[in-house]
């Protein structure tokens, strides 16, 4: 994770497009400017970034479903629970399941845990639309390859 760049997912551990499931690995850095303010003398991963981690985990799954033809944009976080603090240096395991593949939108259930203990969970919804421009699409394809996104999910049929 590079918190200040909103790069939350380090690696895709497993992605099953047919089953609509994904697992990711997210290493919380030991140091980050984010921890300077959150909180002084008590560094903890902000809850907003836990939600972002769940949203990005699910986002990669939706991108796989779409085979990169379109892009998901976060629209709604429902029933979010932040169960405990996350400290610098911890490894978060992300998991998401596609619960609804709508026309122009998608819904996932996402969980992050550490050491088998659930840290946070939420239902997350996305609107699905065209990539805003070629630059962002190219950057996301590059990032996808970097984190182990399946090559066969990178191209629309």
């Amino acid at each position, binding site marked *: 994770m590079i918190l200040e760049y909103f790069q939350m997912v380090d690696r895709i551990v497993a992605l099953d497009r047919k089953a609509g499931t994904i697992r990711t690995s997210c290493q919380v850095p030991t140091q980050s400017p984010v921890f300077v303010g959150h909180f002084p003398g008590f560094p903890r991963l902000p809850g907003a970034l836990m939600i972002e981690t769940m949203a990005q985990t699910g986002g990669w799954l939706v991108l796989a479903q779409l085979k990169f033809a379109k892009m998901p944009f976060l629209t709604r976080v429902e029933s979010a629970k932040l169960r405990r603090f996350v400290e610098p240096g911890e490894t978060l395991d992300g998991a998401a399941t596609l619960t*609804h*593949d*709508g*026309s*122009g*939108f998608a819904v996932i259930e996402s969980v992050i845990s550490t050491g088998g203990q659930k840290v946070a969970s939420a239902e997350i919804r996305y*609107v699905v639309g065209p990539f805003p421009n070629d630059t962002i699409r190219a950057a996301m394809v590059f990032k996808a390859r970097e984190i182990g996104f399946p090559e066969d999910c990178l191209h629309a049929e």
Partner: protein
Amino acid sequence: MASTFETVADIIADTCDIERDKITPESHAINDLGIDSLDFLDIAFAIDKSFAIKMPLEQWTREVNDGKVSTEEYFVLGNLCKHIDLLVAAKPA
């Protein structure tokens, strides 16, 4: 068993916090009820789940944007319900 309209109207009332009595088959979701695109996605999600269908919103949007049909075709609730009934009828047994 509730009619398609009753189910859709209940969903809209719950999702958008609109008084149920104000929702009629003649209501236009946008012009009369003030439902925006994000709320409409939530409504679509609830309708998809309730009727076990997938409303083709992207196709409907293209048809409206291309001028093939007016917004009334899909956003007047009575018409929307007719399309939902067609989708339900077309589901595999």
